[in-house]
């Protein structure tokens, strides 16, 4: 199994971090891909994250699925329970009362969408979660981190780029060290 190293550099501000990311992209260093470069920050900063390239988000797709399933459950299940499974003596009223069922359908439409949205987001968090990877508590305060997963041969070049862009602190770990 191929061994990788992780390099984490901390920066004071987003401008410095953005310049470092741009330098990484233009460096043509062998041994890492821009997909393996990750920005860690205390606030959301889409402009800086754009420097890393496109990060697709599929949450809305799951929201749509949840909405469709929720509304289907709301209407079909409740209607079926009233109309088909049991005979109701309703005195001439329709077997499936559409307006009241629409209200419940509306509520379950939203509830289904909410559940699927949140589950999708947790799945994404879980997929991108690696508890052993380098992390600094300074990131939750006021520092911007750039984490690079790279071949050990590229680490020196990456450290050099970070140093040239005034990284405050650079730390490194290897797969072998983490497995210990």
């Amino acid at each position: 199994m191929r061994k990788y190293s992780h390099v984490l550099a901390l920066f004071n501000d987003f401008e410095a971090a953005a310049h470092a990311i741009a330098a990484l992209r233009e460096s043509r260093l062998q041994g890492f891909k821009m997909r393996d470069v990750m920005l860690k920050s205390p606030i959301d900063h889409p402009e800086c994250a754009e420097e890393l390239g496109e990060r697709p988000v599929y949450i809305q797709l799951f929201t749509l699925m949840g909405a469709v399933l929720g509304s289907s459950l709301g209407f079909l299940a409740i209607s079926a329970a009233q109309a088909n499974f049991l005979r109701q003596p309703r005195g001439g009223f329709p077997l499936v009362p559409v307006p009241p069922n629409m209200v419940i359908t509306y509520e379950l439409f939203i509830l289904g969408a909410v559940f699927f949205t949140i589950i999708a987001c947790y799945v994404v968090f879980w997929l991108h979660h690696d508890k052993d990877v380098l992390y600094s508590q300074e990131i939750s305060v006021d520092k911007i981190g750039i984490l690079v997963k790279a071949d050990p041969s590229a680490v020196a070049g990456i450290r050099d780029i970070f140093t040239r862009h005034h990284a405050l602190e650079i730390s490194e770990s290897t797969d072998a060290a983490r497995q210990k």
Partner: protein
Amino acid sequence: MTPTTHDEHEVTVEPRFVIKPKDINEEISWAQINEDVLGSLERPRPLYWVIFFGSLAAFCWGVYCEVYQYRTGLGVAALENPQVWGLYIATFIFWIGMSHSGTLLSAILLIMHADWRKPIYRFAEAMTTFSLMTAGLFVLVHLGRIWQFYYVVAYPSERWTWPNFSSPLVWDATAIGSYLTTSVIFLYFGMIPDLAICRDKAHGFRRTFYRVLSVGWKGTDWQWANFRVTYLTLACLLIPLAVSVHSIVATDFAVSQQPGWHTTSFPPYFVAGALYSGCAAIITLFIILRYTFRFEQYMTIPILEKLCKLTFAISMVWTYLNVVEYASVWYGTDPYAKQALIFRATGLYAGWWWSMNILGSVVPFALTFKALRTHIPTMMVVSLLLNLGMWIERFMIVTPTFAHGYYPWTWTDHWWPNWVQIGIILGSFGWFTMLFMLFCKIFPSVSMYEVKEMVYHRIRARKVPVPQPAPSAPQPAES
């Protein structure tokens, strides 16, 4: 009075250059924000404990009253024909209404990019959640037979018992259940980055607690991108849900035949009233939290002013809908509804009716005066008066209507709840306040990452050079 002479050295400053007070100190460091908010979890002012134990005592009294009512029967609560709903349903509507402004402040202002909401939306969301939990209790209390609660839930009728799907009470259970679930998710999800900050600073059991809740948050760009989309999506889903909940509560009344309730304007009237009472409650809690947790740097006077302006605007919408309701009844063709309106204004409950109108429609004008808006003790009193007015509004919806229905033999010339009902209602306020204060002690009640974003973007906006107008095209030379 001597005429003033113009001083030739006097400098006139154009209004557009007058510096407005800032919503927040933009020079505050991010580390300071963390320290202040995390500090609030450790050492609140002594008033915190006074409020907490006071609310705990009120809650215990409410529990005693409820146990007494449960063991003895609903008769001890002075619930009798025609006053079968008493204060329970009025207070249920009050708590449902309180829950709406958390959504307004959090979701609607989020979509509108009003960044002044950022230091204060977290506690407003918590208020939403705990108000809904309190409202749910009243459904149980009012039922009397608590163990038969599932009769109001929409479930398949496998036992040949028929929940009436055409009844708004069944819709209510679905709507409130959905709203409570979504509100809890929305509140928790928005806290995840802050829970990670708590995790990084905590020790022992607290660290484990926050680590579990922060679901591995490391602030990566992947996480932020998904977080942003999810949060916005939840906000968009929450807004129609909030509107539907109070519309359905209004439908509980509007679909009935009682004079005074059978009005098509009830749903928007309820929604406006809900937003109004919620905003007033937010002002009250704003002032309490600002003092007890030393949040003077975050819950600032300019933000309080904006809240007051929002409350005033909503109060005028509520007043307008009130006038619409009175006018449509007055000029309508239903003599019973008109008689019910006259009874409210001149009958047994006239004092309450006039109090409601004065507190709900006249007192808000205090919010238009800057001197009053910026004076914290005055605002505390005004917000409490507005809350009282909105509680009386719910009382006026329920009680006088039952007291003066279609059947003269049911008309009552005296009715007032006894100590059991009042005790349970006091207990509900204790329950809400206790949960709210506990929340503020365990979770950050100011959103740290959003305040950082607010400060960051405001400073960055100041640094952006003002775009210069493009040079005009050279004019052709005149021949």
